[in-house]
């Protein structure tokens, strides 16, 4: 063997993709147990809420309750998968398995690790929203062809909840503290961001809060792709919200994780 190393530091994009590749590889190593739940969960939700409860619920705006709920579930599944990945997943890689310590021995910076992880969470968001879409397509709930673009909103949702979850991870000392994040923030968001009923029906104060939290905006975007005539210029404001949200929470996440890893 010859030890005249002539490898250069890989380019930025290549480094991030290599981190992404690692996560994909590990995720796919237990593909069956990882890939089944994304399909089962929406089935259970739609069966329980949509078919069961749906009979007693009148149409929501211009769509049936089942369609309304289905178009919301496309992003909530992306939200939950990204949030789990970047809280419990990141924390375990950081603190218990020391996976990051090993990776930082390779020509990767802390930023590369974080960006790669966020990109992976976005991909998972894409995959999970696609799973929901496949279920609702097959069930005949969503039929509008442009709904295929809702997967992109799933990707954006994954990115958004990756950055904010990583920021939470950077300040958490104990893995059990994530329970506050899930039951205190994500679960209420599920019910008050227009997934199960339109936010317009909320009292003024709650409506204001609903407009502040991230989920409302991505639900609105995803739903717009699922029904004919849903798209309008107002949605650009929601997109702008997403961009600003990612920039701010992403900056906080990078700062926090860096502080934790380079000592």
């Amino acid at each position, binding site marked *: 063997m010859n*030890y005249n190393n002539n490898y250069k*530091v890989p380019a930025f994009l290549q480094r991030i993709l290599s981190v992404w590749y690692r996560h994909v590889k590990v995720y796919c190593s237990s593909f069956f147990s990882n890939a089944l739940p994304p399909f089962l969960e929406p089935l259970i939700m739609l069966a329980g809420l949509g078919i069961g409860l749906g009979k007693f619920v009148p149409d929501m705006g211009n769509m049936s309750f089942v369609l309304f709920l289905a178009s919301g579930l496309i992003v909530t599944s992306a939200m939950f998968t990204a949030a789990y990945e970047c809280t419990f997943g990141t924390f375990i890689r950081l603190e218990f398995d020391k996976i990051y310590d090993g990776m930082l021995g*390779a020509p*990767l910076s802390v930023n590369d690790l974080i960006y790669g992880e966020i990109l992976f969470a976005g991909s998972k968001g894409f995959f999970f929203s696609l799973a929901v879409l496949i279920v609702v397509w097959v069930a005949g709930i969503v039929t509008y062809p442009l709904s295929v673009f809702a997967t992109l909103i799933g990707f954006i949702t994954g990115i958004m909840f990756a950055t904010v979850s990583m920021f939470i991870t950077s300040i958490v000392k104990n893995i059990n503290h994530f329970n506050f994040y899930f039951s205190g923030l994500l679960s209420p968001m599920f019910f008050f961001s227009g997934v199960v009923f339109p936010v317009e029906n909320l009292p003024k104060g709650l409506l204001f809060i609903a407009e502040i939290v991230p989920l409302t905006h991505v639900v609105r975007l995803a739903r717009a792709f699922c029904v004919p005539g849903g798209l309008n210029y107002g949605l650009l404001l929601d997109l702008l919200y997403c961009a600003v949200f990612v920039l701010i929470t992403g900056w906080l996440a990078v700062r926090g994780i860096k502080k934790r890893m380079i000592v």
Partner: protein
Amino acid sequence: MSDKAIIIKNLNKSFGDFKAVDDLEFQVEKTECFGLLGPNGAGKTTTMKIIYGKSEHDENRETIVDVFGHNPKKQSLVIKSFSGIVPQQDNLDTELNVTENLNIYSKFYGIPPREAKKRIDELLSFMELQEKAKSNVRELSGGMQRRLTIARALINKPKLLILDEPTTGLDPQVRHLIWNKLRDLKEMGVTILLTTHYMEEAFQICDRIIIMDKGKKMLEGKPRELLSTNLEKHVMELYGVSKDGSDSTKALDAAGIRYEFHKDTLFAYSNDSEKLAQIGEMLKESEYYIRHSNLEDLFLKVTGRSLNELQ
């Protein structure tokens, strides 16, 4: 560019009030094996982490950290691209098999797939892991996991290999295997920097060592020379001796032999083993045992025989 592999000068690192590294200075020549020795908490790991940029040293104008002409604070990626790093704790991906673990790291270095495949085959046979190529990491023994971690650090053909306690917790066979591999690598022109608290390890593979304690350098040199210049050739251990006024201490004092106590054992040092034996026979007070002094004695002499709070 200097002809040294690593130059460290005036290196300091504090964590709050605690000084992990205190005014450290040493140089590593190219293609030598250099050992950092010291008890837990001596600052060995911190020094290593500073060298590859995982940890940042205190700001100080006089500080120099130069790794093959690169400063880890600014160019840690460059340093890591030509280095191999073996951390203290194996952190392999336990969900994946042996080959996949290596393959993932080949991507981190941007090694083209075809080249990576060849390289992985080479490394598996070098570390004697060919039969385990498709085995899940979870099924590997501790020694195999360690070898895989070392193989992973070699994927980029590093010119600098950094190992943090490479053989801690391994059985003697695996330790010898790893030492042999490290010797081979040195032959092939790899510069090796390692930390250890096994004196035998330092003796077996290190060309030069420094002994650190509480962040400071206590001694530096070639293992054998350090031993001969700092310590008598023989040690007698006497068990169950009372500390003061006993016959043994009087006899030793009379013979002008240096001795010290550690718990219930008395250690007497001399270049003359006959003399030690005479005293040992004369005393009949307890059992005695005479042996060659080793690096362990030197280590304990320098760093003190009592445990520090981190041990």
